[in-house]
């Protein structure tokens, strides 16, 4: 594997870890379940902190996703080289980025979304996150790759 590919995987792994953690931190669960009591993890119960960390990780993830996507096509990557697992993960990631971006817009001042739209976005974002986590776990265990 080229060092570049290693670096990408490394960044992807770390970002995915922190974006998931800070994402779950949006729900008031880390304090309830003593996780925020573990030294060094107190930030998980600070909602303004997890909010910003989630945004920073999302920026890295969006930049990385677009970099990989364009790099793939610039290098003559063909769609039929993407595995089924790869496609499923692309769907989950795209969905997460779109719903996430809409939620960032929703959080801006003077922006009003329909109440049901907000609930739908929250649930879709959570569902897609679970989907990506399960797919990621499968890929790790079964050593599935994005491209063949």
């Amino acid at each position: 594997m080229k060092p570049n590919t290693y670096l990408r995987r490394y960044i992807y792994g770390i970002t995915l870890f922190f974006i998931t953690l800070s994402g779950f931190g949006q729900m008031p669960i880390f304090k309830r379940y003593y996780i925020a009591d573990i030294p060094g993890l107190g930030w998980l119960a600070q909602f303004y902190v997890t909010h910003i960390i989630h945004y920073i990780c999302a920026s890295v993830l969006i930049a990385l996703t677009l970099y990989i996507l364009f790099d793939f096509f610039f290098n003559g990557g063909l769609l039929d080289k993407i595995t089924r697992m790869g496609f499923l993960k692309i769907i989950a990631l795209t969905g997460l980025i779109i719903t996430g971006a809409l939620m960032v817009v929703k959080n801006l001042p003077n922006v009003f979304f329909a109440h049901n739209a907000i609930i739908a976005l929250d649930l879709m974002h959570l569902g897609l996150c679970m989907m990506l986590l399960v797919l990621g776990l499968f890929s790790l265990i079964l050593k599935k790759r994005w491209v063949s």
Partner: protein
Amino acid sequence: MAVKISRRAFLKGSIAAAGSVAGSTRIARAAKSVTKDDKEPIVTLLDISKCIGCEECVHACREANETKFPKPKQPFPKMYPNRVPVQDWSQKQEVTDRLTPYNWLYIQKASATVNGEDIELTIPRRCMHCQNPPCVKLCPWGAAKQEENGLSRIDSDICLGGSKCKKACPWDIPERQTGVGLYLDLLPALAGNGVMYKCDRCYNRLEKNEVPACIEACPEDVQTIGPKTQILEKAHALAKQMNGYIYGEHENGGTHTVYVSPVPFDQLNKIIEKGKGKPHLSKVKNMMADGTNFAKAMLIAPIAGVVAAFGKFYLSTKEDK
């Protein structure tokens, strides 16, 4: 033994006796100014110097919103782990000296000396209805919502009672009641803990072009409601006239509630009773500002990704030549 006439009952009588003409025109005028055609958010102005602390507004709020109050089922489901607090106000519904799920407005008291004169001030306190409300924007389920007229409220059918809104609120306004709401139908032992309650600025009355109950009930016309520009102008004129001070215009990036007081708010903040259910009057920075700035900076992310890929491609084609 002296016969005690409740001040509330007395005032009610006196309002009726004063005749309804003046009252009804005033309220009709106010109601007209909160119609939906207004493109601007609606703001309320509270003139603290006029408030006599009669609690008429507090009782009007309780009456008008009684149907929205929690009706918890006993016994409450056991919650795990043990640190999850049971918060039950259903046995203490009569409490009016702080905010509770059954008391969305309360009268905060302060004694101060202004120009050598001792004065007693009473301050009606409730949700400030922030312009960019963290309680709404950070709610993970979309249970809290903001309407275009600027009010924010918590949907008791959706709220799970995690209390994140209270922690995010710079004034700790929402109050929790255990044993009600959607969490009972999900995993009551493991997630959720009831429903959060706070002033919803009488959204259902506003929908009918009626003013909030607390405004209508006040015998001293402490509150004025109307479009933002108009109310802010009034607030500044009033502050100038009484040589007073304004609170709420810039707090947390701006709210839809402005207080005008003859005593500086930092001084008031020192002498009011603060604590659970009793919000402070300190300066509040814009809690959502960092999030908003990061959100704007996020626009660079996709561009950076594409540019990096393009740069790499460009360099590799150059190397190939």
